[in-house]
C-alpha cells in the first residue's frame, strides 16, 4: 500500500497529531481529553506512519520499545501514588503545588497529572505493542 500522497501527508501530519495528543493529555483535567484519549491519539499517529510506510519505519519513529513505554507508564502512575505515601497520606491521594512562571502566569501541578502521563504512556505502549507485533508478523 505505497502511496506518495499518503506518505507525504503522514510526514506532515504525524508531528501535528503527536502535538495534539500532548495537548489532549494536558488539557484533560479541565476540558475533554486526558491520558486515555491522548494516548490513543498518539498511537494513531504512529499507526498512520505504519500505514503510509511500513511497521519497521513506525517502530523507528517510536524510538523506544513499546514495552519500555508500558513499564515507564506503570512506574509513573505508581510513583504518583507513592508521593502521597511519602508525605503520610493514603496511597494515590492527589497533592498539588502552585507556582508562578514569569510570562506564563499561575501554574498548578499535581500528582494526578503525573498519573495521567502514566496512563498516556501505557496506552501508547499497549496499542503500539499489539499493532506493531501484528503488522510485522
Amino acid at each position, binding site marked *: 500500500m505505497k502511496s506518495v500522497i499518503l506518505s507525504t501527508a503522514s510526514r506532515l501530519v504525524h508531528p501535528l497529531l503527536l502535538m495534539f495528543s500532548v495537548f489532549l493529555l494536558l488539557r484533560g483535567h*479541565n476540558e475533554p481529553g486526558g491520558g486515555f484519549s491522548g494516548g490513543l491519539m498518539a498511537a494513531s499517529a504512529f499507526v498512520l506512519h505504519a500505514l503510509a510506510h511500513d511497521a519497521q519505519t513506525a517502530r523507528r519513529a517510536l524510538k523506544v520499545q513499546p514495552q519500555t513505554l*508500558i513499564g515507564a507508564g*506503570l512506574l509513573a502512575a505508581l510513583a504518583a*501514588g507513592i508521593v502521597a505515601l511519602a508525605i503520610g497520606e493514603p496511597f494515590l491521594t492527589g497533592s498539588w503545588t502552585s507556582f508562578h512562571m514569569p510570562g506564563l502566569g499561575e501554574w498548578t501541578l499535581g500528582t*494526578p497529572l503525573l498519573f495521567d502521563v502514566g496512563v498516556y504512556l501505557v496506552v501508547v505502549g499497549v496499542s503500539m505493542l499489539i499493532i506493531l507485533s*501484528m503488522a510485522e508478523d
Partner: protein
Amino acid sequence: MAPVGKPVTLFLQTFGQQDTHPASAVTKIMIECLLTIFGLALVAPFLHWALRSTTHWFLGAIVAGITTWLALQLPAVASGATLHAAFAWVPALGVNFSLMADGLGLLMALIICGIGTLIVIYAGGYLADHPLLGRFYAYILLFMGSMLGVVLADNIIVLFIFWELTSISSYLLIGFDHERAAARAAALKALLVTSLGGLALLAGLLLMGTAAGSYELNEILTRGDVVRSHTLYVPILILILLGAATKSAQFPFHFWLPAAMEAPSPVSAYLHSATMVKAGVFLLARLTPALGGTPAWQGSLVAIGAITMLVGAILSLSSDGLKRILAYSTVSVLGTLTMLIGIGTLTAIQAAVLYLMAHALYKGALFLLAGSVSHATHLYDADDLGGLARRMPLTAVAGFLAALSMMGIPPLLGFIGKESLYEATMTAASEIGKAGTDHYSTGWTRPIMSLTPLAVAAHMLLFVVVVRVGVRPFLGRSRPSAHPPQEVSPSLWLGPLVPAVVGIIGGLLAGNVGSLIVAPAVMAVRGEPHEAAPLALWHGLTPELALSALTLFGGLILFAARRRLVQAAASLSRLADWGPDAGYDRALATLNLAAKTQTRVLQNGYLRWYLLTVLSVTVLLVGYPLIEHMELPEIKNLSDIWHFELMLAAMTLISAYAAVRATTRLGAVAALGAVGYSVALIYVYYGAPDLAMTQFLIETLMVILFVLVFYHLPPFSIFSGRAARLRDTLLALAFGAMMTMLILTTRANQSQPRISEYFVEHSLTEAHGRNIVNVILVDFRAIDTLGEITVLAVAAVGVFALLKLRRSAKKEEMR
C-alpha cells in the same frame, strides 16, 4: 478516595496485674529477636555468598545468642510474669501485632531457637556441597521466625499468619531438592493437608474470637466459661481440632509426615520432629483454658491421640528407611501428647510438657544422627548398617544417649517423661473424680483407665524402633560397603550430640528443670496456679517404675521377634490400599480430572462458545432478579423524542444488521465500525465528549487492527446453520432486552443520592479539575485506573508473547 488507615504507630505496652517485669526494654527485644531472624532469612543467600564455608557458624552464633536471651527470661517467667509486646498493625480491623511469652510459649521458643542453632550448624556440614545452600539457610530461617511467631503470638490473627507461614516454609523445605519428582509430590502433599487444616483453623479461630469478644489470646484465655457455653462451641472445637490434627499429623492425617522425609535430614529433624509438627499440640495446649475440660474436648482428643499413638507405633515397624521409621514413631509420640492434653489433669499436662521436651531432644538427635550415618555410609536402610561405633565414636555416643532417653532409662529426661506419662494415665481417673469442683468432667473415667495398657503397648513397639535406629547401626560386625565410614565433621556430630547430652543433664537436674521450665508451662496450660510435687528423677519403687520395667522387658522380647513382627506389619500394610494415603491420591486424581473436564468444556478455545457462555450466564443471573424487581419509569410524552435520535437508532440498527448479514470480512468489519461510530454519536449528542472522543479513536484503531490481521485469517466462512443462527439471535435479543430493562429499572429506582453529585461538587474544590470524567479517572478512582492500566499492560504482553511464540514456531518449521 477514603482514607485507608492512619500511619502505623509503634507502641509498646504491658498488660496484666502479675507483670512485674520491667516491660518496655525486654518486650522490645522480643520483637527485635523475631525481626532479626526474618532479616537473616532475607540476607542469608548473600551472606552465604560472602562467607562461604563459615556461614553456618556465623548464623548459628546469632541464633544461639537469641536462645541465650530467651533462657535468661526463664527466672522472671517462672516467678509468674508474662512478657507482652504489641503494636497496632491493622487498626481499622482491630488487629494488633501482639506477642506474649508465658511459660508455655517460652519453652517452645527455647526449643525452636536452641535446636535451630544446631540445625543451622548441621546444615552447613550436611549440605556443604549443595549449590543451593544459601537458599536453604533462607528457608530454614524463614521457618524459624514463623514458628517463633506461632508460639509467641498473642493475637489469633497473628498466630494464624505465622501458622500458615510455617506451612509454606515447610513446603519449600520438603521440596528443597526440587528436581526430584518424589520430593515435589511430598511437599505438595504436606502443603495441601496442612493448609486445608489451616483453612479450618482460620474459621475456628475467628468463631472463637467472636464468641469470646476478643482476638487477643490473653483475653480469650480468661473467658473460657463464655466460650465453652457458647452455642458455637462444638463447631469451634471441630474446626480448631482439624487445624491442629492436620499440622500435628494425627490419624487420619498422619500420612503426610512419613512422605515429608523426602526433605534433607536437618529439615526432618527440625520441622518434622522437634518443632512444626508440635504446633498442633502446642495450639491445643495453648487453648486448653479456653476450650478444654468439656466431655467433647476430652473425648475427641483422647480418642484421636490414643489411635494415633497406636497407629504410629505399628506403622513404624513396616518401614526400613531410618528416617521413615523415625517419622512413624514421631506420629506415635504426637498422638501421645494429644491424648495427654485431652486428659487434661495436672499430672497429664505435666507429663505432656515433660514428654514434649524429652522428645524434642532425643528425636531431634536421632534424626540428625540418621542423617550423619547416611551421609557417611551412603546407606539409608536400618538393616544394612552395623558396627559403626568404632568408625564414628562421637556419633555413636549421641546415638546411645538419645536411644536411652527414648527407651526411658534413668537418669535421662526421657525416663521422667515416660514415668509421668504412665502416672498420668493411671491416676487420671481418680484425679478427675477427686476434682469435683473442677470443670473437668467425670464421664470419661472408664476409657481413661484403659489407656495405660495402650500406652505401654505403644512404647514396647517404640522400643523396637529405637534399637533399630539408635543402637543396632553402631554395634555388631561392620558391613562391607562401597564407602568406608569415617567420623563426620564437627558440625555434623555436634548436632546429634548436644541434644543427647542436654537430655542427660535435664534428667540429672530434674528438680531445677521442673521449677524453672515445666511448672510455668503447666501453669500456662492450666490457666491457674497449682501445687504439684517437685520433679525428681527417682520416686522410689512405684507402680510406674514397674510399668517402665515391663515396657523394657516387653520391648526386648518384641525386638527379638522383630522379623516376624515386621512381616506381620508388612501384611498389615496391604490395608493401606484403603487407607487415608490412598484416599489422598484418589482425591487428588479426582480433583485433577474434574479440573481437566471443566476446562475442556468451558475453556474450549472457540470464541463463539465463550461469548455464548458469558452472555447466557449473564442473562440468567441478571435477568432472574430483574424480573422480580422490574420497575419501569412512566413514559409521559413521546413527542420529546426528536428525529435525530430516531435516525441514530436506525443507523445503529441497520449497521448492526449489516454486520450480521455481511458476506465478506471487510464488509463485516466496516459495518461493525459503523455501529461503533453510531454509539459515539450518541455520546456526542448527550454531552459526553470524553467518551465520544475515546470511542472514535478506539473504533478507528480497531478497524486498522482488523485490516492488519486480515492476511493471517483463514478464508471467510459461515460456520453456523439455521438452528444455530436462530439460537444466537434469540440470545442476542434476550441480552439486549435485559440490558435495556436494567437501565430503565436503574433510572426508575434512584432512591439513593447519586454519587455523581458528590463528584460534581468536589471535583474543582478537592481535585482542582473541571473535567469530572478525568478527575474520576486520575484522582477519585485512581486506584481503579491503576488496576485497569495494569490489566492492559498484562494483556499486551500476553498478545506479544503469543505472536512471538507463533513466529518462533514458524521459524522452527522453516529450518
